């Protein structure tokens, strides 16, 4: 099969989704393709920090200014994705006074609201700070749900006539007469994908490579060299919010210096290690130990707290080849627009590399301006003013508890997750029991997520947070899989269950001590002993029924 579009955006992370929305709002015919789920790559593996810019206020003031500007815009247009936690840069005795002052001056120079708190004031904000924290700088950092944000951008792109394809990896770029004219993609099984197994050729007036850490691979398909330097970092998830404010350590760049409260959890980060392959790299015990040990110096109870899993992400770092930084932490977080016509004499394609999640919208605007220039489109960018789907009318965040017959925390959190879509999703005539007790996710939310997720329970998970709490799916994986039936047959439901259970196990392996090891042992008992999923005769082969107890006559 073949299709035609004005712009083909490759990559369904924050940048790609942002570009698709921007172009679609300008009336440009746009198609977005993503190899996996939306946020499959780096976006889905970040710590969820909405930068105030404070983090870059000393080392990279251009980035810092962009961050605070976008921070303000996102709180406005994506209210249902953002939690305004505020952030602290805390000073330990061994951190220098000089750097503390530089940080403060930097924030002010970049128009970032910043306020010095005494030790006592800092502890009023965050009671669990270490007793030897001498003082802190308050900044407007926040927490953001990257998945919700990407989905909202993709939904907006579709509402404006764009086409969004997930589970559609690019198999080849089409280069004709020295020009990129489109791409071939393979449809894989996934939500809304009835064409699984087919190859589609998409012809485009212009192709945008927004594949982040994968940009080099796409460049290879067109014969151009894009030297992205993937750098891995660990994020370790705690089972509760030990802090309600982002806690940064006030010192120059370094590993393991941030705690971000995220929904019901805290996320500790991170490390910074250059890797060769954005998909295959070692996930090491020392990285987990380092973030816990280092951050315990800021918030001592983290040392005793329950860790539920760890995951790793790869930053798509980029610097112009002539810079040649040896240490990945030295590489700028700025983004670069590579016009391959100018750079490589290959028209028809532009790559976007580097950059940060917080400034995704600004990057998208810049790329869209560039692409519109190429296509002769004059419409201007409106993404900074028009709220994203789900954030149009956030006044719906009132008390839904009685209305939906749900106990209080469940109702409140459902509405927070859904934003202005809450009415549509939660108003159901059928009983709406809680399926995931740890995160308070009800059947109606899961059913809503399933309409966008096909049989992929991981896609349900990132839409709803089901299976992301203490038990890591031990109690709810089975219930989520049951929701696939009877629209899908038993074997499909079972396969999806196995995939989700394995995915949950993958991250939980890095947290197997203390309470979480007990939890893992309980999950093992439940799924192997009580449910016999490891010896299931539907998989292991039909037993000789007559050889077993047939009951007393």
């Amino acid at each position, binding site marked *: 099969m073949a299709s035609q579009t004005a712009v083909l955006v490759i990559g369904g992370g924050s940048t790609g989704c942002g570009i698709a929305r921007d172009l679609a709002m300008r009336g440009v015919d746009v198609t977005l393709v993503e190899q996996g789920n939306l946020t499959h790559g780096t976006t889905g593996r970040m710590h969820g920090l909405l930068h105030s810019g404070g983090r870059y206020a000393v080392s990279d003031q251009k980035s810092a200014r962009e961050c605070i500007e976008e921070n303000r815009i996102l709180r406005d247009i994506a209210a249902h994705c953002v939690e305004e936690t505020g952030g602290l840069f805390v000073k330990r005795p061994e951190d220098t006074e000089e750097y503390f002052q530089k940080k403060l001056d930097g924030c002010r120079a970049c128009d970032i609201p910043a306020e010095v708190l005494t030790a006592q004031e800092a502890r009023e904000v965050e009671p669990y700070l270490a007793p030897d924290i001498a003082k802190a700088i308050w900044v407007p950092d926040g927490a953001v749900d990257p998945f919700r944000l990407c989905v909202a951008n993709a939904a907006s792109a579709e509402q404006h006539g764009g086409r969004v394809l997930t589970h559609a990896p690019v198999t080849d770029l089409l280069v004709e007469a020295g020009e990129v004219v489109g791409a071939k993609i393979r449809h894989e099984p996934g939500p809304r994908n009835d064409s699984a197994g087919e190859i589609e050729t998409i012809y485009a007036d212009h192709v945008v490579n927004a594949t982040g850490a994968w940009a080099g691979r796409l460049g290879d398909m067109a014969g151009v060299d894009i030297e992205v330097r993937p750098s891995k970092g660990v994020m370790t998830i705690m089972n509760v919010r030990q802090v309600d404010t982002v806690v940064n350590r006030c010192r120059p760049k370094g590993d393991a210096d941030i705690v971000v409260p995220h929904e019901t959890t805290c996320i500790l980060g991170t490390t910074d290690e250059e890797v060769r392959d954005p998909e295959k790299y070692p996930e090491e*015990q020392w990285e987990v*130990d380092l973030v*816990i040990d280092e951050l315990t110096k800021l918030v001592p109870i983290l040392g005793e707290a329950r860790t539920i899993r760890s995951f790793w992400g790869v930053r798509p770092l980029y610097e112009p080849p002539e810079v040649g930084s040896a240490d990945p932490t030295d590489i700028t977080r700025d983004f670069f627009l590579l016009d391959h016509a100018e750079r490589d004499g290959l028209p028809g394609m532009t790559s976007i590399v580097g950059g940060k999640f917080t400034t995704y919208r600004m990057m998208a605007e810049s790329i869209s301006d560039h692409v519109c220039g190429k296509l002769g489109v004059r419409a201007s960018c409106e993404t900074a003013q028009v709220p994203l789907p789900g954030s149009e009318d956030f006044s719906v965040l009132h008390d839904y508890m009685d209305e939906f*017959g*749900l*106990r209080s925390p469940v109702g409140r959190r459902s509405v927070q997750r859904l934003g202005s879509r809450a009415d549509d999703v939660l108003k159901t005539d*059928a*009983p*709406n*029991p*809680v*399926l995931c007790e740890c995160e308070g996710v009800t*059947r109606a939310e899961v059913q809503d997520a399933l309409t966008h997720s096909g049989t992929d329970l991981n896609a349900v998970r990132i839409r709803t947070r089901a299976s992301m709490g203490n038990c890591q799916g031990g*109690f709810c994986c*089975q*219930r989520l899989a049951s929701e696939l*039936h009877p629209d899908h047959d*038993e074997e499909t*439901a*079972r396969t999806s269950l196995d995939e989700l*259970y*394995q995915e949950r*196990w*993958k991250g939980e*392996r890095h947290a*197997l*001590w*203390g309470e979480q*090891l*007990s939890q*893992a*042992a*309980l999950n*093992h*008992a*439940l*799924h*192997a*002993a*009580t*449910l*016999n*999923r*490891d*010896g*299931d*005769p*539907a998989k*292991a082969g*039909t*037993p*000789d*029924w*007559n*050889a*077993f*107890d*047939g*009951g*007393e006559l």
Partner: protein
Amino acid sequence: MIESDVLVIGGGLAGATAALSAAREGADVRLVSHKESTLRNASGLIDVLGYHDGDLLADPFSTLDNLPEGHPYERVGAEAVEDGLALFDEVLGDLYAGSHTEKNALVPTTGGAVKPTARYPKTVAPGLASDTNEMLLVGFETLTDFDAPLAAEHLENAGVPFEVRGVTARFPMLRADAKITRYAKVLDTNEKGIRSQLVEAIKPHLGDAERVGFPAVLGHDHPEKVREALGRELGAEVFEVPSGPPSLPGMRLENTLFAALREAGVTIETGNPVVDFEDSNGRIDHVKVKRTHQHVPYFANEFVLATGGLVGKGITSSREGVREPVFDLHIPHPENRYDWFEDDAFGDHPFARFGVAVDTDLRPRDSAGAVEFENLRAAGGVLGGADFAAEKSGSGISLATGQFAGKRAAQQS
């Protein structure tokens, strides 16, 4: 002064069995248990050995002698397993079935697989997979652990020798997030004629089914009455499909066991943890029980440790290593915590075998292999060397080692 012949620490299946068998030997027995028993989390099925090296076993007893050195069954021998089951049958005789044969039964799970087990509640009995009678499974919209149509299709895919269908019904009266104990309660008391209301909802789906399976909520105090009443009105046998926590069959088992303990004269104390001990000359002198803010010494001649494994917190861990928290007994384990697990969720996880290593008298041994204390034995999940979840052997190990440890302790006291 608090003193007994035998002090049992832990109130799960192993602890209860140890206390009961010690009391039956004539000892003066005290049982102390910290928290709610984990029995209420277990399915209530009594597994002895369902798998060996991944092979499904029709007869667990044919394989008991082939287990590797250090496995709890190897330590106590097949006879202890028989003795443990005999004690169980005697106490639970009216409530359980399966003692008529040495063969394993295959019981449908809520997911629609089947699992091998040696004893099963009578409420479960009509559901056995080796029976050929046509089956209807009934789930409730609000009880999310059991999707009956899905389980029925799963059983079909497992090749069961009977016709099976599933239907989802609405359970009258209760709110969407009612606890399962609430379901049991209204069925027990037949509030507002709930049983007949239920039957009316199910009857149109019955067809030729000769047995009807429900989630395991058919009464807390009077399951037989509930089952009988529903069965009579439906004109079919009614059974329960057991599931994981919280579990009414587990609670019923716990109640019966504790009644038997009281009847046997065992002193039971729950809610307070054992936090420390004193020893001299290689023997435990007394343990200390934390009661409000003080540590109270409990003296005994013999002690049985039945505090459970990782799930019951009889074994604990940290990034530094794996511990037995009461007596600080040696727990063999790899030093590097990344060697505690396999990458496959159902892999052969070393953590699943964590526990104390014992001699053939069930006395814990230190890292050099020497007996730690002359008068301390371990039983049940706190023992290492078996992946009870993969083997389906948890209850059998608790019964065999609990019975064995209790009897030896009583004889030595």
